[in-house]
């Protein structure tokens, strides 16, 4: 059962067809922002609404992929990936807030009657440093947490609950106004990024393309990792950690590496998410958000690379549609979907697609 990789399927399907299929999706994704640049009345114009919606889903897809690397491959279910996503988002948000505040303090600080920036805000007016923070904040936190957690061999449900506690603590901390991140309101009302107006079609298109690039890059990275010996060690770790230790591998290093990598990917996704949706607020750290991310992965099919992307797309696509089509009852549909998938599609949608493909 636990196929280490989607690659087995991809290998079976033949490299050519895989390339064609992936290429087609990529082409559509690259075309979208370009079509967005067309005048609004053009027949092929892609609206800002569609672009931000798909952009948001792509960011979620990266989160799903990152989560799948730790859950599907290394067997560590994190219920706190929302925290890393939000940290990346906040780092980006700090830069955007500084951009719109100009030389002054961000509005919420003057509201708290603060007269100078807290130390952790220093340098955030520089895009480069903000980008460093996007990587460092989630990366360091994940490293420290992972270091201790893996050292004491916390695993399984314990690990999941601890990550949940971590994101919950983060949420409470960021909700506090004194923490210096805008409290419940978080960051909104961004104007420019690198000097470009954030709502301009060109900026939107570039952000979208960056997201597509990050997704493609993550996919490639995941593919490379999964094919390497590293990927096989992870799979071994998931299935028989003790055996692996007695083979002389130190699982801590492996877990820590993939865990930190996954957190950094989430942070990057968060950084691209914030300028596209226009807000970051502590509710992104709510435990329910992280659970939902796990649902995307499970729904798509964990332990595969395409599955999580499909899962994120399906759940969020459904959500966008249901919340308009039948606002009162969409939670029933969503809940039922989770139950049906876990009961009847243990390998997720990708498992279904595969099973149909085979005679």
């Amino acid at each position, binding site marked *: 059962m636990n196929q280490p990789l989607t690659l087995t399927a991809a290998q079976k*399907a033949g490299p050519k067809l895989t390339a064609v299929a992936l290429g087609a999706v990529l082409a559509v994704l690259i075309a979208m922002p370009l079509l967005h640049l067309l005048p609004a009345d053009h027949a092929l114009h892609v609206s800002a*609404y569609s672009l931000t919606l798909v952009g948001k889903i792509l960011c979620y897809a990266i989160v799903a992929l990152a989560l799948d690397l730790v859950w599907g491959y290394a067997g560590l279910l994190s219920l706190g990936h929302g925290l890393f996503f939000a940290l990346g988002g906040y780092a980006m948000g700090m830069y955007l807030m500084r951009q719109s505040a100009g030389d002054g303090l961000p509005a919420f600080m003057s509201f708290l009657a603060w007269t100078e920036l807290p130390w952790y805000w220093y340098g955030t007016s520089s895009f480069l440093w903000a980008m460093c923070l996007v990587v460092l904040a989630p990366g360091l936190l994940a490293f420290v947490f992972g270091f201790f957690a893996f050292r004491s061999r916390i695993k399984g449900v314990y690990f999941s609950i601890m990550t949940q506690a971590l994101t919950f603590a983060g949420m409470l901390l960021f909700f506090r106004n004194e923490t210096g991140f805008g409290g419940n309101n*978080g960051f909104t009302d961004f104007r420019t990024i690198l000097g470009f107006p954030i*709502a301009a079609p060109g900026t939107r298109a570039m952000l979208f393309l960056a997201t597509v690039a990050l997704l493609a890059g993550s996919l490639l990275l995941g593919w490379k990792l999964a094919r390497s010996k590293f990927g096989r060690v992870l799979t071994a770790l998931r299935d028989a950690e003790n055996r692996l230790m007695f083979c002389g591998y130190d699982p801590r290093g492996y877990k820590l590496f993939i865990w930190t990598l996954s957190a950094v990917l989430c942070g990057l996704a968060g950084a691209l998410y914030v300028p596209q949706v*226009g*807000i970051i607020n502590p509710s992104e750290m709510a435990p329910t958000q992280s659970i939902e991310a796990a649902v995307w992965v499970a729904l798509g099919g964990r332990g595969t690379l395409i599955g999580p992307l499909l899962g994120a797309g399906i759940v969020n*696509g459904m959500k966008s549609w249901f919340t308009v089509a039948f*606002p009162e009852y969409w939670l029933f549909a969503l809940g039922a979907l989770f139950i049906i998938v876990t009961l009847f599609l243990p390998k997720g949608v990708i498992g279904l697609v595969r099973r149909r493909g085979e005679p």
Partner: protein
Amino acid sequence: MKRRPLLKSTLAASALMLSGLFPFTLQAAETIKVGILHSLSGTMAISETSLKDMALMTIDEINAKGGVLGKQLEPVVVDPASNWPLFAEKGRQLLTQDKVAVTFGCWTSVSRKSVLPVYEELDGLLFYPVQYEGEELSPNVFYTGAAPNQQAIPAVEYLMSEDGGSAERFFLLGTDYVYPRTTNKILRAFLISKGVPEANIEEVYTPFGHSDYQTIVANIKKFSTGGKTAVVSTINGDSNVPFYKELANQGLEATDVPVVAFSVGEEELRGIDTKPLVGHLAAWNYFQSVENPVNEQFVGKWKAYAKAKGLPGADKAVTNDPMEATYVGIHMWAQAVEKAGTTDVGKVRDALAGQTFEAPSGYTLTMDKTNHHLHKPVMIGEVQEDGQFSVVWETESPVRAQPWSPYIPGNDKKPDYAVKSN
């Protein structure tokens, strides 16, 4: 047939993305679309659901009278699910996909802040019906709830008066978010300007969903030994029930330490056993118990509507301040559209200035000529055993809003008319 799987999944993925790309567009010339943007699920559903129903009722009422400009209003209800980014997304959808003429919605400040850039970018029109902290004045938003000077300050003035119990110590208790923070900041400045020493003001915040008020109530008790004390509560939503229960059970009565709340109305009291709360206060611009013909009609209509639609708990349906603000907002917009002869946002905005409406509060409310806020009366109500409020004090005439409170430094330089934030 081994080649299929990946192809299929890829196709599925692209189909999904395409469906987001080209959503079907419906054009209906004979109706005017009106967006309703209130959370129907998630944490805010508790407050916002009834506003959605109130908006639908008001639209029915207008339609029954022939609609606006001879066209029927067509409500477009969406559920932003208490998720702030989703508010922005749904707002954009209402404006660009559904092309609504106006949107009524939002409750929390963060949801308003989330949609605000979208409405400014696309030049949409949003009516916001809830009391809030001010510090904002967008040309694309009309604020039909109270600004701090239309709620908080009069309430504290009342507490300091002889009738209110001549309070000299103030315990400012709130949920930790921007509305309580700003309100308390304004109140603190106000109290100090009235000669209350700093030592007599205590400010305490609790996280969202806080449910254990034992320590805080014990602290209030301790604080209240120092002199005549009043609690100013900006506790939000669900936390009110455990707070009031703890207050009652620890034996703090309204005669000893009155609590004046800015977020507790008739709707919230439905979930509380009010017997131990009699005498505690709330400040609003409208109470269901206000006696006048317009209100009688308004309450009657709402009760009939709730029953007819089979809303949950219809037999105990109540009206409250944000519901009245929604009702007033929709009617004012309709009047402005009639006056402008079009739903064009710029023209409607101009027509709204100075618009008046005979509101259920018993006053004729005026939309300010410049600052997008209503002139509203302020009322202090005391909780009664039946879950209603009896008005113990009210202003003589409607008060003009001060979205930029003079008690916050730097606000004197802010213009008293709406300007886009960027």
